[in-house]
């Protein structure tokens, strides 16, 4: 029974990793841009929610809802003003720029919020649980997982059911031909990064409610996110969810065997998947 419990906890943890990863997957799928500041943007989102909560006493959920349009605007502007300038055939410039952004964000947060760890207030939610058969499951992990599934469903709806989604896919296929359809690739990319930062805000909400955070934890979140995207297959949103779950389960199983093995087990899972399927579980047909 303890193993069933471990695996269920792992799946739910995977929801959090999928939330970390969904924005990264979206941006990579559309413009082949790996945003090395993604983890730091999540931490920044958590601080933004914390600021709203501290100043207004609002619930973190409402604070996150207020933060979302701001984060969207930040993402849109960031892409339009900075990242679009370095996108091109060479993948190195965007890596360097986002790495620089990562350093700047970490230091700015250190300056603004100090290195003390913080947490979003959750009240009774952090200890609430429901009984599922013979195991108890935390309400917060369930909410996290449900949000991750919802995010993936909504993203898929946007991708495959809306005009914007068609433009995303067309621009990802061939930006020059897309411009002949009246699409402005620069705006499409900005829109994608804006949406990615809305997802980042949701990830930040659960990151901040489930555990302590400080300005330096961004890069580790980026690694988990990146691993989830790679396991799932670059550009596949459902694959990203599955990738998150695989890392989550590997980590909890590893921790159940030996607490020191938690992080290691997640990385080993990535290596095993790469050995068996070098392009991930659900690679896109066209790449």
């Amino acid at each position, binding site marked *: 029974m303890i193993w069933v419990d471990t695996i269920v906890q792992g799946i739910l943890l995977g929801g959090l990793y999928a939330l970390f990863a969904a924005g990264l997957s979206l941006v990579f799928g559309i413009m082949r841009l790996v945003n090395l500041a993604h983890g730091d943007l999540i931490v920044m989102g958590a601080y933004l929610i914390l600021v709203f909560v501290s100043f207004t006493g609002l619930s973190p959920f409402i604070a996150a809802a207020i933060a979302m349009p701001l984060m969207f605007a930040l993402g849109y502007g960031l892409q339009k003003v900075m990242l679009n300038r370095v996108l091109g055939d060479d993948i190195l410039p965007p890596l360097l720029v986002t790495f620089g952004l990562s350093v700047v964000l970490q230091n700015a947060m250190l300056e603004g919020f100090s290195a003390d760890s913080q947490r979003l207030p959750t009240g009774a939610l952090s200890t609430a649980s429901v009984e599922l058969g013979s195991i108890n499951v935390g309400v917060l992990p369930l909410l996290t997982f449900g949000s991750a599934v919802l995010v993936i469903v909504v993203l898929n709806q946007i991708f495959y059911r809306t005009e914007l989604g068609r433009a995303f*896919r067309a621009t*990802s296929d061939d930006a*020059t031909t897309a411009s002949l359809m*009246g*699409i*402005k690739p620069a705006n499409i990319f900005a829109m994608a990064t804006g949406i990615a930062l809305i997802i980042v805000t949701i990830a930040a909400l659960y990151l901040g409610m489930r555990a302590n955070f400080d300005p330096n934890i961004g890069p580790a979140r980026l690694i988990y996110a990146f691993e989830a995207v790679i396991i799932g297959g670059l550009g596949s949103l459902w694959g990203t969810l599955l990738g998150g779950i695989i890392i989550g389960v590997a980590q909890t199983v590893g921790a159940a065997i030996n607490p020191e093995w938690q992080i290691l087990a997640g990385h080993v899972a990535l290596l095993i998947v790469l050995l068996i399927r070098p392009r991930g579980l659900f690679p896109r047909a066209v790449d």
Partner: protein
Amino acid sequence: MALLTTQNLTAHYGDFQALFGVDIELNEGETIAIIGANGAGKTTLMRSISGVLTNQPDMVTLEGVPIGNASADAIMAQGVAMVPEGRKLFPSLSVEENLLIGTYGRKTAGHWSLETIYDLFPILKERRNNPGTALSGGQQQMVAIGRALMSNPRVLLCDEVSLGLAPVVIKDIYQAVPKIKHAGASMIVVEQDIGQAMKVADRVYCMMEGRVTLTGTPDSLSRDAIHDAYFGAAA
């Protein structure tokens, strides 16, 4: 006033000059054909008009308004749609989505809609849920033409629609040209297939090495004149 003109149009790829002072004029309702051998500059001309390559503003005009330096999406929004060389369907989109994306930048009501495109090329309706790139070359070309028509353009640019297709398929596709003309679009058709070009065009421009070497109505051009303009007088 001409609907679309190029005046003294030049184009460069890095240090290489591809066009040398090209003057083209397209009148309302007219179909003109641009013929020439590989490397004559036909595709570069199309790319310059459609905004994929930008130029000095005055080098391209639409109803007298300079658009030479406008971006491809802005030119498309003003009603100049392109069927690019090599069809360039979006592999991630189905046939129907490929058609629908054609209206992204310009939603002008007119003759062309999904329904009338499917009337024009009935096979596309049968295959509307297939990925665009799963179709045969000829069917893909039909999608590319339909995609450009969906925005109800005033000017339709067709770049080498017959390239790589079997003669019988080319015939099928060219049967659509009179209907497109009738629905009101003016067309610039780039062709290596001189026979097809002569059949559909009101006027023909022949290009060689980045320059227009001959122009006239199909009746007025002799075989020898075209041969000289196409390959050079010494050939």
